[in-house]
């Protein structure tokens, strides 16, 4: 069953990739031909939308999703979180030159030290899951920011839910 799910997910991912790849050149934005070097060249330069390029960092962070969310005071992965991490694992296995740092975060409802430790638990839960999906452990580091780096600033559950997160940050670099 797990294999089936994974296969289905891969097919789905490839399918999306195929579609979006086909769309790529329809989404280009011509830049202002008069900008830049003064002389109009008569040639429009074209910017690709990197979120549609499956080897791009934007694809990782936006299309797959670079983060998973947690419920209050837990570090258990949700079904949605595991699905996102399956996509992250696939990307990391495909793009094997990249390293990743998993950042664990907490919402502001907690003491500073405890939230650091809780963020470490969350980051580690993601790291362990990615390793279980075949990502070599030496490509994955963890760090916790506790409650130091919220993305949302309100003091309500709507914000807290987004701040209780683990974010996988991709970085280029040789394996140590």
């Amino acid at each position, binding site marked *: 069953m797990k294999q089936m799910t994974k296969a289905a997910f891969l097919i789905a991912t490839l399918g999306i990739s195929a579609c979006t790849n086909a769309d790529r050149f329809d989404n280009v934005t011509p830049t202002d031909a008069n900008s830049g070097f003064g002389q109009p060249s008569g040639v429009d330069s074209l910017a690709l939308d990197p979120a549609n390029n499956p080897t791009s960092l934007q694809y990782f962070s936006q299309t797959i999703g670079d983060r998973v969310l947690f419920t209050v005071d837990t570090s258990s992965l949700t079904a949605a979180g595991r699905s996102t991490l399956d996509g992250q694992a696939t990307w990391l296995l495909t793009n094997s030159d990249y390293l990743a740092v998993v950042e664990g975060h907490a919402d502001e409802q907690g*003491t500073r030290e405890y939230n650091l430790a809780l963020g470490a638990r969350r980051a580690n839960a993601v790291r362990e899951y990615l390793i279980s999906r075949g990502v070599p452990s030496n490509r994955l580091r963890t760090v916790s920011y506790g409650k130091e780096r919220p993305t949302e600033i309100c003091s309500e559950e709507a914000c807290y839910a987004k701040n209780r997160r683990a974010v996988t940050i991709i970085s280029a670099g040789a394996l140590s």
Partner: protein
Amino acid sequence: MTRVLTCLMVGVLTLGVLIAQGARAQPLSITITDGVIEPLPFAVPSFQAENQSAAQVAADLSRVIAEDLTGTGLFRQILASAFISQISAFSAPIQFADWRAINTQALVTGVVSVNGDQLTVKFRLYDVFSGAELGAGQQLAGTVSGWRRMAHKVSDQVYSRITGEGGYFDSRVVFVSETGPKNDRRKRLAIMDYDGANVQFLTDSASIVLAPRFSPNGDRVLYTSYETGFPRINILDVASVGRQQLATADGEMAFSPRFSRDGRQVIYSIANGGNTDIYRSDLASGSNARLTSAPSIETAPSFSPDGSQIVFESDRSGTQQLYIMSASGGEPRRISFGDGRYGTPVWSPRGDLVAFTKQNAGRFHIGVMRTDGSEERLLTASFLDEGPTWSPNGRVIMFTRETQGADGAPALYSVDITGRNLKRVTTSNAASDPSWGPLQR
């Protein structure tokens, strides 16, 4: 008269509660208890200036002394507009009847001289109702730039002679100064006088700094820094502002450091593989020992004053609670059993109490309990209070209070361990994570 003075001086030396041998039976003293007390009325007529260049500093000194005393909540200032007689000269006899008439109980007089950058301050404390000095007059000498410290030293003497307890005014606080919006906070280590004056920055805001902790004699500061990209413990020399990374046990993250009372050891947390435990580092040898080995979170350790025990928080029961273990590790005993979650315990300087942060029913509290967990008292309540630190004399707790919402920001507050006299400590920027240093020499 000589006999009375001798008696008083012995009283000062032993820091006992003084009994003035005057006509009045009631001595000038405040016994700090849990009950509501009527603040003791005092007057600090502007100190005499012995020369023209001392005029400003004489006025400033008197003002800061009055602020120190009033700020405790134990004293009430009688303003100069109510004075009947003036102090014409430091050595002139005091017209006690004039001070009694306006219900002044303690009178502080002083004289200031400035020579170049040298400042000399003399002061006397009088028990107005007994018509006698309380303790011997004193002379302090230093530089003009250190005038606030001299004022605090006078205040410490007055406080200590009247309450029988050590003072806390000539002390400093290391903390985190914060600027910027909530989702892009910039944090810098800073140091200031206990009352928020003389702020100096110890680091820039290039990387996150958290939870500085003073060494027992105030010469060094431990803190958590992200300058390597990962949380590591730095040890900073206050005088030179030089810093180096503490050689901790191996781990992905090191944080939550605190000194032992002799300043030779550091206890801290390491997170590895998502699990946080407590370790101890011996600064001289660089050796590290692991003190806890549980799959739960063990963090926020604090030594007992005698160094034999450590209080810390753990969620081994399912929620954050407080535990005490031997300084060498071993089986801890739980001390917190009330509703809610307990964290950031800090052992009091006298050894009898543990201050903590409590989270219950959506509110945060600063509280104290005895070391066996009994007599829990919550001193504050707000959206977010955390991280208590003790005044040098163990009478006052400073902590972080953060306000709610998108514009929420932290500030420093202090409160008596009786729960009275809650007030904000003025800082120009938002501020968090105070650590109160010792009385300065």
